[in-house]
């Protein structure tokens, strides 16, 4: 089963300020998860204030660029995991958050083509 786990670091779900130590630990953690055959792909997400929203309603497109009010300069991250069940995805997400030092991650099951 595949799950996408992401931490968007938008203003509603703040995450701790990253430190060089945290980055080093996160590197070790990603290596461990890769060794366990869990991580299919992973990466960072640019700060929320650089985000662009594209909307389509009533036949009209609206493109809204940041910065948004109250936006903080925090990066997020995502990982595509392959695990045996949802409980494993939850456990790996707990381990990720423990390294990150706090915050909130969302896990969504994803499907192939």
């Amino acid at each position, binding site marked *: 089963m595949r799950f996408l786990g992401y931490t968007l670091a938008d203003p509603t779900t703040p995450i701790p300020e990253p430190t060089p130590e945290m980055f080093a630990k996160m590197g070790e953690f990603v290596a461990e998860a890769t*060794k*366990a*055959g869990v991580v299919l792909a992973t990466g960072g997400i640019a700060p929320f204030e650089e985000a662009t929203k594209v909307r389509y309603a009533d036949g009209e497109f609206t493109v809204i660029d940041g910065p948004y009010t109250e936006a903080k300069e925090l990066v997020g991250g995502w990982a595509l995991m*392959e695990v*045996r069940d949802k*409980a494993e995805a*939850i456990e790996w997400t707990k381990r990720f958050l423990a390294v990150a030092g706090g915050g909130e991650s969302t896990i969504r099951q994803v499907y*192939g083509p």
Partner: protein
Amino acid sequence: MVSSELVTGSQTHTAIETVIRLESSRLIAGLARYAGGDIGIAEELAQDAVVAALEQWPREGVPANPGAWLMTVAKRRAVDLFRRNRELERKYAQIGRALDAEVDDGTAALDRVVADDIDDDLLRLIFISCHPVLPVQARVALTLRLLGGLTTAEIARAYVVPEATIAQRIVRAKRTLSAAHIPFETPGGTQRPARLSSVLEVIYLIYNEGYSATAGADWMRPDLCHEALRLGRVLAELAPDEPEVHGLVALMEIQSSRIGARTGPSGEPVLLLDQDRAGWDQLLINRGLAALARAEALGGTRGPYVLQASIAACHARAFRPEETDWARITSLYSALAEVSPSPIVELNRAVAVSMAFGLAAGLALVDQLATEPSLRNYHLLPSVRGDLLLKLGRAVEAQAEFQRASELTSNTRERELSAQRARTAGAQTEESSDNPGR
């Protein structure tokens, strides 16, 4: 707080079981070294630690480093066990003393569970579980049990055999390894190629049982495919310098990319050239091509898995069936026939030849295999022959071949597919007799 945010008792239980399952193989691997390579004792010690965890964690919470916690508890049990049992104490006197020193010094013991050491132990555990002294079925069961953390019930379900059969295979395997004094080591030197080849064989057997089940109603058991792929991915990080490991991973990644496309709406098999390639998983194809590139970068003679992965890659790279590089596939099968000659490889080469150089050339090769004793009951021989005959317009002979193919397979779905092809060929026979002018 809304109720969905509350952690319920059953959630805690599931979480704890999951942590234990994730830690299980590394725990047993680490303990096997302390138990002088006796994986039976290692498993018992691990089980003791698991019982302790199931008692304490629901009350006290899961510790920050659950793997180290389990290892420390298991080592304490090991010290007790070795003290109690004089026989074992003599055998493991040295280990016992080393353990004493380590366990007395509580926190340092936690720190000493160094990830690198455990990685080495895990690789040793893979090698011993796949040891050639064991029958192949025992290697498969032991690997799924110790490395996959599957229960005997889960393994039994996957292989459609009684649970007692699997339990017995595992017990006997542990006894055999112990009686043969198989050392807990990463084989080197001249032993290594054969031992590694046994490991790869076991993983690919698990994969193939999932990819094309030999028995039962479902044509595929994707859980077994995923488990084999996971084992392969783990192995690739533990033994990164072995091209064949990456070759096997590449092969499984690319084959897995087609899992969604190789069955139709009612679960019937769809042949490679008939598959909707938009349904192939590009993420897995890319991972497979990357693994193949890793294997090729390591150089050396191309082994059977690298060659099979290269063939799979030829199909993966073709956006449409007609873009397939059959000439290259033919030469890859020739190379494969040299490193691991087998009538099945020859049969596949015949198919490639028929695509690259014409049906008649392919059929001539298939006909050479007709007397091959090991293929006498192999359903794909008449299936391939039927396909070539049908394309050559020899529908009557084709029908008989498909009929024979359907009688030779014990997989329900495959039997239905061949029977269906026999009916189609039969219909063409009638069609041509209705229209003698054609």
